[in-house]
Every structure is written in structure tokens, then in C-alpha cells.
């Protein structure tokens, strides 16, 4: 049976690598929807992926800022109408602006929560309301959500919320046979990591494709044996 996968934050980093892997996986995925904001990176990376995928896979581009809830709801409705059931959802889009508590701008905290917490919630809830039945949902949290870290208040708080939200989703969606996976990558060489740790040499830490490989495994049959709690991925 042909399956559809939707990946947020798919313009680069872990999301883009996940799109690459799922487009070439043996999970019967025939449609891969890449969701991200408009950017030059998205244009270039999407074009490169299009050139790479085989005939059996349809790529779809959904240009939306997941932090804009109204726009996100519209996009979800359009995607569901055009492509039907989303079997695999990878909530990967993330945002951070790491500053100490004295410098946190509340609007920025709200933006962090909007992208990291409310967007995955909205995607899942809207699709459920539309009658969507998920096979697997993967929520990307972070090791920063397990232990708070000085200077990362907004990010740590948002990722802690993702971890606990995932536990509730896992329990509530069992009635549909949906698996809910929460992945907490440690240091990964992404654009977001460069914001968190600008001095770090990206070549010395985990690469996005490593996390993408774990995501693919979690979506597949092997994943059911390891998805009962927050899964930590680190080098």
C-alpha cells in the first residue's frame, strides 16, 4: 500500500536528510511532502532532491511558516484534500534564539513555543479532526528538553513540552494503532545548532543524516520495539 510522509522543517538539516531517506526507503512511501518556509535553501535543496528521486515517488512542496498557526491550518487542509491520508508525520521544524532570562523577549518566547510546540500539536490535531489515521508520528525534541541549560530557557522549555506532549499523544492515539515516537537528538550539525553553539566545529559532532537514519528506522517495523519512551540520539 502506498504511503504518504509529511516532514516539517524540510528545507535543510535533519528534515531535508529525512526527506532524502524516505524518498528512497523501502517503507512503501510514494509521496513525500516537504514543508518549510520559503527560502533560497529550500529552492535549491528541493530542486536537488527532485533530480534524485525515482519515478515511483512524488515530491510535494508545502511552503508555509509552521509558526503561523492560521496559515498552517490552511496548508494542512489543502494537503489533506489533495493527497489524502498522511501516514507518517515527522514534526521536525525547530526554532531557537538562545538568550539568558534577563534578555528573553516575550514575543520571541512565544515564537519558540509556536514553532516547536504548537505547530506539531496543530498538525496532529487538525489532521485528526479531518479523520486522518496516522501510522507513525515522530516528534523531534532535544536533549536540551531533558535537562535545562543556562542560556537556553525558551528552547529547553519548549523541547521539554514536546517530550511530555509526545507521551500523551502516544497514550491517546493507541486506540488507532498509531505509534508516537519522541526523538531527542544531542548535538547535531544543523543551522539551529550553529545558533546555539556558534564556536563549535560542526564536523566534530553528529550529522543530520545520522539522525535521519534513526528516524527512518523508527518509522519502520523495527521502530515498534524502541518507541515506548523518549529516544535519545547522540554521538
Amino acid at each position, binding site marked *: 500500500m502506498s504511503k504518504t510522509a509529511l516532514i516539517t522543517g524540510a528545507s535543510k538539516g535533519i528534515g531535508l536528510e529525512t526527506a532524502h531517506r524516505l524518498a528512497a526507503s523501502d517503507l512503501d512511501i510514494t509521496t513525500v511532502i516537504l514543508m518549510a518556509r520559503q527560502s533560497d535553501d529550500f529552492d535549491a535543496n528541493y530542486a536537488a532532491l527532485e533530480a534524485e528521486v525515482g519515478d515511483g515517488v512524488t515530491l510535494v512542496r508545502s511552503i508555509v511558516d509552521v509558526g503561523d498557526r492560521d496559515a498552517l491550518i490552511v496548508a494542512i487542509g489543502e494537503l489533506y484534500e489533495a493527497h489524502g491520508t498522511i501516514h507518517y508525520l515527522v514534526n521536525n521544524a525547530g526554532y531557537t534564539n538562545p538568550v539568558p532570562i534577563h534578555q528573553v523577549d516575550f514575543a520571541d518566547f512565544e515564537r519558540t513555543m509556536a514553532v516547536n510546540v504548537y505547530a506539531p500539536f496543530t498538525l496532529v490535531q487538525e489532521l*485528526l*479532526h*479531518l*479523520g*486522518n489515521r496516522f501510522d507513525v508520528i515522530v516528534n523531534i525534541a532535544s536533549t536540551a528538553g531533558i535537562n535545562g541549560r543556562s542560556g537556553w530557557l525558551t528552547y529547553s522549555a519548549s523541547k521539554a513540552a514536546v517530550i511530555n506532549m509526545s507521551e*500523551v499523544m502516544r*497514550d*491517546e492515539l*493507541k*486506540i*488507532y*494503532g*498509531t*505509534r508516537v515516537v519522541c526523538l531527542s537528538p544531542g548535538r547535531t550539525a544543523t543551522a539551529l545548532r550553529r545558533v546555539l553553539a556558534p564556536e563549535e566545529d560542526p564536523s566534530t559532532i553528529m550529522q543530520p543524516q545520522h539522525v535521519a537514519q534513526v528516524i527512518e528506522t523508527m518509522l519502520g517495523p523495527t521502530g*515498534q520495539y524502541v518507541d515506548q519512551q523518549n529516544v535519545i540520539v547522540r554521538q
Partner: protein
Amino acid sequence: MISLILLNGGVGARARTAGPKQFVKINGVPIVVYSLKAADEVAEITEIVLNFPPGHRDTLEALVRDYAIQTPVKYADAGQTRQQSVALLLDQVTNDDVLLHESARPIVTADDFRTLINSDHANVGFMREISFTVAPVDPDTSRVTGSLERSRLRNVQLPQKFNLDDLRRGHEFASASGTHYTEDATMCADAGIDVFFVEGSEHNLKVTTPGDVNLATMLLRREGDENV
């Protein structure tokens, strides 16, 4: 094509819950959702007729909407008794056969409904052997009045399946004879209608007390684990 009658109008007197027991949550999910979701998976069920505790129609409609129940749902008022509630629900049915279930039994599966639909019998329900001895008594004098043969007794569970005309005849019989029944299989049998049973499950719990809520939560969590 078959209709599901979902009894959902009780007021939770025995469960001693704050609100109507239909909105008791099992594992965080309103109990009625489990039956609606199971029925929604069965293609043969083309309509669901359910009743609601007085004043709670809006709550129920919101649940049906939020949980994206695709099967068309009709609503009926709850009667003064279970028997009267079933009669009111029957008036809304448009198919020739009905499944009868109650939302207080959340551990129902789509396959349970299919087992009944696929049965050759027109009137059939799940029943379970009883593991304890039942004595006939006179409650007024506390006197034991005889004995009952356990192997010839069954615990009546739901869901059940009935031919609509047969079930209506059963209710007419009950009204005419002035007899009050707490379920429909024995009512129809007393009316001379053939009713059969298939073996039920010990997990098919009817949630009536706060302890049952905990037990159902545990059972559903375990079943969920087994299913995924």
C-alpha cells in the same frame, strides 16, 4: 448494511461520578469514544443512533466532530428506563438489522461487531460463562429459594445483533405483558423469538463503579500495547 444503536443515556448513579458516566474518561479519553471509534471501522455499519443524558447533546455532538466519526450519527432522547431508551432509539433506525451496544463497555472492537454481523443467526449476542454460583432468593425474607444450574446460565454482554422487526416484537411483548427487562436478548427469548449467543470475552467489562474505571484503563492500555 446495519445500524448501531448505542445506549448512552444513563446518568451514572452507580459509577458515582461527577457528571454522566458517558463522559467518564478511560485513559484520558471519554468512554463513549471507544465504541464510536470501533463502530466507525466497520464498513457494514452505515448509521449510528445514540442517545444522550438530558442536557448533554452538545457535548456529544462535539465529541463526534472532534474524533472525526465518519459514520452518520443520529441522536435520540434517553428514556426513563433502559427498555424505554431502546424503544426510542429503534424509532430512528433505517436498516433492517441492528447492533445494540452500550458506551459503558469501552473494550469493544471492530471485530466484535463483525463477528455478530457475520453470524448466520438473525438475533445473536455475546454471552459469557459465569465463574461463580448464583442463588435464587427471596430478598424480602432473605430466604434461599432453590438452586440454579450454573452450566445453563450465562452472563449477558453486549454488543448484540437483532433483526429490527424481531426486536420491535420483543418490546411489544414486554409492553403488553407489563414486564420490565434490563436487556433485550432475554426479552426477545421470552417473546418466543429465537436468540442465540456466541462466546464473549472476560475483558468485556461494563464500567459501573470507580474501580471499573481503573480496571478498564489498565485493560485498554495493555490491549493498546499489544496492538501496536
